[in-house]
């Protein structure tokens, strides 16, 4: 069988499956959507993030429906699902980046170490310092590598710069040098940029830029790092480096990563949450269990490539 004909048959099957599954969901909606047992995941210790009954609308579009999920600390949690299933929206709810979108409305609660971040009077600056974020496309500032890493700590006043150096704008304090070096080392970028910290960050390759963005995020010393498909714009070698980095980071930080790539999720994550079309969280559990023995038929179809 040639490759093209194989593709055709797969596509055909997907189409017909889609048709049947949609009829099934209309008839047997209750058991597909309400089986809470599929989303149960027990782990030792308290969750660092505890989401309860989260609903999100973009104007009238109900993007996320009744999401409840507990995320354990110092581990990698992967969010997978087809395009448009709301996994990025969910991720952006966790540090309230959705506040920046005018049409977005959020209901429900997200507890970070027991405190609801959607409560009135939440300090967004403090929240985002503790829950950092890495975006899909590498987005370093058009500044030097050093300025990129030290940007947020300088703004937060974590680096005491003397009056005279500040006036001259040139001298970096010892503390800043240490911070920049530590963050770049943690992001596995130090060896590649050592000695050219004053070069513009836009001169780096895509993979290096993404690791710089991770270093920039580490510089504010967050507890949780949210990653929105951090490797989707990168080549396989750069992707492998980012994946290694994520596994290392999970020793000190809690990582929540959105990915399109199921192999990536299987390789690096400890637990996996599967979102499916319509903004539902269908299954959540240990990564091995979700990939090898999914409890939901739809999730099995999605993972084996029959759907989505």
């Amino acid at each position, binding site marked *: 069988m040639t490759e093209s004909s194989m593709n055709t048959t797969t596509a055909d099957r997907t189409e017909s499956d889609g048709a049947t599954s949609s009829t099934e969901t209309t008839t047997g909606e209750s058991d597909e959507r309400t089986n809470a047992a599929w989303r149960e995941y027990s782990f030792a210790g308290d969750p660092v993030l505890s989401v309860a009954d989260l609903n999100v609308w973009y104007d009238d579009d109900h993007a996320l429906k009744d999401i409840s999920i507990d995320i354990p600390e110092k581990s990698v949690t992967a969010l997978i699902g087809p395009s448009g299933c709301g996994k990025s929206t969910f991720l952006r709810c966790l*540090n309230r*980046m959705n506040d*920046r979108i*005018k049409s977005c409305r959020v209901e429900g609660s997200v507890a970070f170490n027991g405190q609801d971040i959607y409560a009135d009077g939440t300090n*967004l*600056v*403090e*929240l*985002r*310092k503790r829950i*950092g*974020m890495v*975006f899909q*496309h590498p*987005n*370093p*500032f*058009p*500044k030097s590598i050093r300025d990129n890493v030290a*940007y*947020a700590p300088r*703004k*937060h006043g974590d680096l005491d710069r003397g009056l005279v150096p500040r006036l001259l704008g*040139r001298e970096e304090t010892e503390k800043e040098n240490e911070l920049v070096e530590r963050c770049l080392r943690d992001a596995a970028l130090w060896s590649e940029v050592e000695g050219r910290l004053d*070069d*513009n960050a*836009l*001169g780096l390759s895509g993979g290096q830029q993404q690791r710089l*963005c991770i270093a*920039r*995020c580490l510089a*504010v010393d967050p507890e949780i790092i949210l990653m929105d498909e951090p490797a989707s714009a990168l080549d396989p070698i750069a992707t492998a480096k980012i994946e290694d980095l994520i596994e290392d980071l999970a020793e000190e930080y809690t990582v929540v990563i959105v990915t399109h790539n199921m192999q990536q999720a299987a390789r690096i994550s400890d637990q996996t949450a599967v979102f499916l079309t319509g903004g539902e969280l269908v299954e959540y559990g240990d990564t091995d269990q979700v990939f090898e023995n999914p409890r939901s038929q739809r999730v099995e179809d999605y993972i084996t490539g029959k759907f989505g």
Partner: protein
Amino acid sequence: MSDAYHSQLVNDGGTTYERFAMAVVAGAFAAFVLAAGTLFGWVSLGGHVGNVPVANVVAVGVLALGAGTGTLGVLSRWGGVRTTPDRSPGLGVGIVQTGLWLVTAGLIASHTLGLGGVGWLVAVPVGVFVGYLTIGTREDVGATLPAAAFICLVGAVLVTGLITPAWTWEPEAFDATIPGTIVIPLLTMLSGLLAGWAGASASERFGTRGRQNGAFLLIALVVLLVLSVLVFLLVFVFERGIAVVLENLTVGAGTVLLLLGTALVLLVKFGNVRPATSDSTDKIAAFVNLAGAIVIALVGSVLAYTIGVNRAISGYAVTIEPITAIGAIPGLVVGIVLVGVLRQSDATWVPATEAGRRVSQGLRLGTGLLAGALFLEVVTWSELAVAGVAIVPTLAIAVGVIAVGLLLVNRVASLSDTLTSPTWLPPLSRTATVALWAFLGLCLHVAITGYPVVLGPVGILASGSVDWPFVMNPSQGLGIQKGVMPAMLGTIWIVLGAVAFAVPLAVGAAVYLTEYAEDSAFTRAVDVATNGLWSTPSIVFGLFGLAFLVPRFGGNPSIFAAQLVLGFMLLPLVLITSREAMKSVPDEYRDASAALGVSKWDTIRSVVIPAAMPGVITGVILGVGRIAGETAPLLLVLNGPNFPNSAPGVISGFTVDFGLQPPFVHVSNPALLERASALPYQLYAIITAGVGAEESFGWGTTLVLLGVVLAFFAMGIASRRYFRRKLHQ
């Protein structure tokens, strides 16, 4: 047909047909350039080449061009040359030919044949017929033959002497006389465009590539025309103004040498002077730069010779005196430029050893002391001396000598194989920078105190190294002494004031509209209003200033009112360009900053504004070009004497009084509230005075005005470059 496509895949380069087509293109180009030269007055149609009048040469040339263009089409269609034409040249070419022949036939019928308005009725079928023929035939015929027929017609008319340089045409429709000296170049230019387009098309054997080549040539010729208009304007003003501007200019040879040396350094540092290692247009630029460097070096050696034999050179009303000492102001300018150049190669020097650290500290201490002493001098505006010994020159010379000494040691050590340079030795860039700072300090000292610092033949003079009467003196009225100094300073102060007033306001408004205000009816209304404000006639701004501002600021027209009025004019453009620049800053930067917990204002200040800075500066450059030459509002709100005999004392006019009542400090500047003159204002006065002999004064003023605008322009470009480099390098 398939053979033709095979041969097109790999172009064997240069069949006779293609070479012939290229010759037609070259001829068309020559005709175009010649015609442009005639229009600008560089070539006279009345002149002679050998014994033949230029007009006849042009006529025969156009005829030959037409014949060549026609031959290209005929050879391609019937001569067995293999080309790849399309079935038709297309509707566009058809419409152009229709229009061309309609006008030609109409003019011939109505004027030459004397049919009057009826002639145009005859012309319509002719045009339509030619257009139909053009579209209906194969591309190689349609693209060449109608054009060739037109060019041949032009050539025939010129050869037979129907239109000569002495011929004139008075159309009834409007009251004007169009001479042959205008018509002949215009017709030649049109013929050149047509023949060039057809020839370029033929040289790539018609078809898609041919059309691309033709379009490229047309665009290139039009761009050439636009550029030559600009160059012509500059050259025209320069030619007429330079003599009066340079009249009686006297410069010391040392100062000229210093300026030339700086130019050479900049040329070698930033320009490409290696033709051997560059290609295409870079190669030409490299040759030009190299030639410039050689000319500078030659002029420099001539100057060194005049100093050696102690003789003045004069020519073209300029005198170069054999003075080796240099002027303080040129020294300051050169020093600042060179410090800027050195900063780019100035890697931060972190000494590894204890001795090195001590040397570094010593250098820093020396420059620090020098800076402190200079600061005191600037504040007191007088010389700082202890027991008769001036502090600044002593310090500056000491620091300079040490730095130059270290520099020499470094050079010697690096030249020799056996010596290794000591570890405490600072790098060249550091010592050179320190030496330059010492030089700058010395220049500033001389400029402030007015006491020259001279050691033997070399030194720094406060005055006398440059004497430029036209630029440095006021005019004593028409016919007595020409000078533009008060007006020039007036223009500079007004423009600086307007920029200082308008740019912060405009950028602030742009920040609010782009970052804070939601896109709403309000912001759209503001957009419409700013666009409208930018198109408002300047005299309206002037009248507003006269009626509203002048009564509120001293009651008489003043520099301050002019600054505000020109600032109002500058506001909308800077606002529009700043907004566009801020809108084009990617949202990713804002997201990234927000995700790091950085507040909105910090994000705007540290990310958005720096990224938008080049766009903001572009707006300022465009706006300054407009307001610096503005005359109408100045007539109303500046309205000083036409030829003031003193410059506005804006710096010395500041008075600071201290009092016991709040706000305790009173700063006032009566000079800002006085009437003054400005370059365009003075130019207007000179022209409207109607004294014929003063025309050269007017041209000189124009040239200085152009120079001032170009200087602002250069500053804008330099700062934009600086911000761009910060963003992208």
